[in-house]
Every structure is written in structure tokens, then in C-alpha cells.
């Protein structure tokens, strides 16, 4: 089994507005992108299991071909709480 960090060129998170975070994974070439997409490994169920979050906290999880990327926006924990 290969680790995602060895397949991806970029793995990052960024806030998207005050109430959401996005996780972006970008691949260097179309072949690797296709391999990861077709593996069926990156799913909402996996994210829920890894981070212990309920399904309703998955805002979206999608493969975006033009950027050879997998993106996952999520609500920020503690959002609404003062910063």
C-alpha cells in the first residue's frame, strides 16, 4: 500500500471563510490522479473514520480533474466560538 504523501504533490488545508476549512490534495500528473480516483479509497466513510466526525460534517468530497485534485471542505470545529 502506498502512502498518499508519496503520490501527491500538494497536501494542504486552508480556511475558506470563517466557518469552513478545505483540505486539498493535488497530484502531479493525470495518471496518478486517475489511479487515486479509481482506487476508491478516498471516500466520506474513510474521512469520518479517520477524524472521528459524523457524516453531516462532510460538506463535500470531490475529485476535480482540471486541477488533478481531490478536495474536501469541512465546517471548522469551534466555529462560532470567538477567535
Amino acid at each position, binding site marked *: 500500500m502506498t502512502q498518499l504523501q508519496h503520490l501527491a504533490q500538494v497536501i494542504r488545508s486552508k480556511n*475558506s471563510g*470563517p466557518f469552513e476549512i478545505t483540505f486539498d490534495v493535488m497530484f502531479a500528473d493525470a495518471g496518478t490522479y486517475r489511479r487515486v480516483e479509481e482506487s476508491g479509497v478516498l471516500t466520506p466513510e474513510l474521512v469520518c473514520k479517520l*477524524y472521528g466526525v459524523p457524516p453531516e460534517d462532510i460538506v463535500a468530497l*470531490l475529485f476535480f480533474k482540471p*486541477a488533478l485534485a481531490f*478536495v474536501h471542505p469541512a465546517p471548522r*470545529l469551534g*466555529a462560532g466560538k470567538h477567535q
Partner: protein
Amino acid sequence: MTTEIKILPPVGMLGYGIPEADFWRGIDAGADAVVVDAGSTDPGPYLLGLGKMIVAASALERDLRLILAGCNKRKIPLLIGSAGGPGIGKHVDETIETIRRIAKEKSYRLKVAAVYADVKPELVRDRFASGRIVPCASAPALKAEDIEESTHIVAQMGVEPILKVLREHPDVNVVVAGRAYDPAPYAAFCMLHGIEDPGIFWHMGKIMECGANCAEPKGRVILATIRQDSFDLEPMNPLERCTPLSVAAHTLYEKTRPDLLAGPGGVLDLTGATYVPLNDRTVRVSGSVFRPSPVYQVKLEGAAIAGQRTIFVGGIRDPILVGQIDTFLEALKKRLAGVFPELQSGAAQVDFHVYGKNGVMGALEPEKDFVPLEVGILGEVTAATQDLANAICSSARIGVLHMPYKGQMATAGNFAIPLNPPENPIGPVCRFSLYHLMEVESPLELFPSRIEEIA
């Protein structure tokens, strides 16, 4: 009808610094306008809550001096969106004051337009009562007190208020807009010059408002050449390049979705966009479609002061305590709640950030089965008054230092505190009280403008 126009964003945030050589390269390449975004909610609610600017006054002035010199050379306009950061009226006026000072010194004659984005709480109350406000993205449902507690409220203007000023005053040199949808000033300039397809200019604006962030490596100055059916992007630093991947990847930057981007007036659908390399550093983009919404909504932003805060910071190295730090801090919180009724009621809050364990990810941290060598603890208390926050924080810090725990061998104080005094008040804490979409009667309804001549 112009065939091509060139827009030069000099940097992704006004005040962050502009590389001079790259800027002049863009001016001399035939820029028809300089357009720059001056705002963001990324730094958090304190800017809007306390009415502060996102950059120091000196940084703003430094960037404006260079930009105004470039605009003066080619006699081209400058458009600024979300002046000052939060984009409140005071920031629009302070930005214009800075421009006025520079213009007088350099003998520039400028016609300046101000477009304001401040929203009165009465109006928000009214629309809330009539069910015309909904949360934006994952914001919580609005409560009446959120409106009452907001120190400032702005709405993100769309293209219409800026375009109106440009059309009514074709000789305007500078437009300083308050809080605006980031691509709106770009869209306004394109519409003024007859670019008809909103899919083209909204997509261009969405990328350009971040400057050359869409290049690799990420840069600042970029030139966009826009025509009816496509636009080209070229970074002005010869060592940076735009590639189809770098430009497409930028579409996902800080967005909920990379394919559908909602804004005032409609949604930009990027699913059909194409990114074609013209050479190894310039990309041609086309194919996005703008779908107008049946109801025009603007995004409201508001911030409120949630309390006053006091903090302490220090480290724990005792392995016996580090190994039980979660239960220790829970027990401390219980003890504090027993002493301070405000903690019981929720009127005050105490939180501990445990660096080395899960300080960064908190409850999301998947790695749980390890004991760190040491932990750094940042304790923070928020309360209605600074005095109360100080008192609770002092008790909390004393508790971390002296509270006993199971198997304790280090009985003389367990917290290494680098600073003196050990607790420090850090002032008001803000929260975003409004991040909601509100229906408007018309796109112009909330956004008045005025004209000023600087001679």
C-alpha cells in the same frame, strides 16, 4: 467596442508589498487599469470587530505611492475593492485621505469615487424578521442578538455599484470601494469596456484578485489580457510561470467548491473551463458560464466583541503529568467552575491548547496513542471584563502550576513559565456575528457613492 483590454493586479492584497520592476513591466506592457483587492476575512473577526485596517498605514501608503505613479504615467484608472480590509466607511475615507496626501505632494489631479458598503442594523433586523436572511456556507443560524451585538456590519457589493460610478463618471481616476465581492472591480472594468460574457470576466476576476498566486512559484504582479471569448494570464516576474495546472489549481484555493462559485447576482460554473498554454508561462482561459440567480443576495459580514481575554503560556516536562494531562486539565476546569460562577453559567470560558499533543488539530487529531516528551500549554480565559478574565486566568495558571495529580513525585510546582508576569491581558475578543446572505431590493440598494476632486 474594444477588442482587448489589459488589467494589472500588482499584488493579491493592497499593502502586502509590490515588486517595483515587475509592476513597471506591467504598466509598460500596456495595462488599461490597475485593480487591487484590499480586503479579506482570513485574519479573523478582530479587524471588523474593532474597525482596524488589515495592513499598517505605512504599508498602505507605500503601495499606493507606487500604484499612483504607474497610473499617472499611463493615465489609467485605479480600482480598489474592500478598502482597508473589512471595508467599512472609515476605511474607505482613510484610504482616500492617503491618496489625497500623495496626490497633493506629487501634484496629481485626481477624480476619486467612494462607494460605501456599510449596512444599518435596523435594515438587517427588518430583513431578518421577514425571513430574508439565510446563513452563508457553514455559518450558524442567525439570532437577533447577533445583529444587536455587531459593532460593524457591511455587505459585499457586486459589480453594479462600481459599474454605475464608472459609467456616470468616465473621467474618474480612482474608485475606492468598501467591502466588495473580490472579483467585482475586475468585472466592472470589463463591463465598462464592452466585454459581454460574464463567464469570462467573473472567472478572470476570481483568479486575478489574488495577484500572481496562480503562478508557480506564487508571485504578486500579473497581467490579464481579456477579450470577448477568453483571457490570458502572464506573471510579470520573468522567473514565474502560469501553467494550466497552476491556474486550475488556484480555483480551489480557499473555496468551498472548485467548480461552482456563488456570488452576488449568480453562480459561476467552472466545469467547462479550459486552460490552454500559449507558451511555457502564459495560459489562455475560457469556457466558464455565469448563471444569474433569480433572487439577488449579498453577503453580510458583521463582528461583535465577545469579551475580554487574558492568557498564560508555559511548558510541562514531568512525564508523570504529561502522561495524564487531559484528565488533569479536566479536573482543573471543574475546580475553576466551582470557584467562578461565570464559568458554570458559560458567561466566561477557559480553554487550554496543549501543544505537542493536539494543540493544532484539537479534537480532529487522529494520533492519540503516544506520550510526548513535553507539552506547551496556552491557557486562555474570556470574560465580560478584563478584571474577571485576569482573576480566572490567574487561578487557572496557579492550578496548572500547583494542582496535585496521581503518582506525583515532583511536588514543588510543575509548570515552566517563560514570561513574567505569568498571565497577560490581551484585550477584546471578537467573533463573526454575521456571515449571512440577505435579499436586496436591487443590487444598488445598499451602496451609495460620492465623488471628490483632488486638485
